[in-house]
């Protein structure tokens, strides 16, 4: 046992000096024991695999940074890292418990993704493009009011101040703009739906 730990120390030192083969030897020597230790806590092979990988990523980063103090205790040190990651795993799972679907109930039947999928995004883009083309067909005074209201989010008071017409005129132009757009849509059987 004494010889094994001193060999570990030698391998760690070799690895820190740039010998990659030393890491391979260290992992080969301890992988089964560390993996079984993790599995004995989490009882899930995939989770154990993830924690095993994260453990050695920490080991590699610490050794490469030269932040490891060799005290002849490589394996206990790695076990401690694995143990801490196991605790992190359970803490994370307590905050956000893992839900597994079964035949009776599927979580996705009550959860929905509000974001548009690729197809709906394309359709939305096309509809918006069609609406812009329709707006281009409007008389200039109506187009101006509609653009200010819908695209620049201005109030009718602001529109009247900027265009120099009364609020009522601005409201009327907006109304006619919408009526005219509906007419064009009906006349040409344009379908604007998403």
């Amino acid at each position, binding site marked *: 046992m004494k010889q094994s730990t001193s060999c570990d120390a030698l391998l760690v030192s070799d690895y820190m000096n740039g010998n990659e083969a030393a*890491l391979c030897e260290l*992992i*080969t020597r301890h*992988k*089964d024991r560390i*993996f079984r230790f993790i599995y004995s806590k989490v009882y899930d092979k995939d989770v154990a*695999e993830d924690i095993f990988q994260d453990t050695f990523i920490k080991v590699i*980063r610490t050794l490469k940074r030269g932040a490891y103090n060799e005290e002849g205790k490589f394996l206990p040190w790695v076990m401690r890292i694995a143990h801490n990651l196991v605790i992190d795993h359970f803490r994370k799972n307590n905050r956000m418990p893992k839900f597994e679907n079964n035949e009776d109930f599927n979580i996705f039947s009550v959860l929905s993704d509000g974001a548009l999928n690729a197809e709906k995004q394309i359709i939305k883009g096309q509809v918006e493009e069609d609406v812009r083309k329709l707006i281009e067909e409007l008389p200039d005074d109506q187009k101006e009011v509609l653009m200010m209201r819908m695209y620049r989010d201005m109030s009718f008071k602001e529109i009247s101040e900027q265009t120099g017409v009364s609020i009522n005129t601005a409201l009327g132009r907006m109304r006619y703009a919408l009526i005219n757009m509906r007419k064009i849509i009906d006349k040409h059987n344009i379908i604007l739906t998403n």
Partner: protein
Amino acid sequence: MANLYSETSRPERVNKNLVPKEETIRFLLDYSKALSVIDYNKLKFEALLN
């Protein structure tokens, strides 16, 4: 005589054939080869070189 209800501790019950996947080991060795730490003015920067 009192019954003993103690159970074998979990690590001993773990299947001895359980080992990490070969690809995980390969990933770690590749990660180690790709990782380089650059020292600069007492700062350490990590770089993953592919």
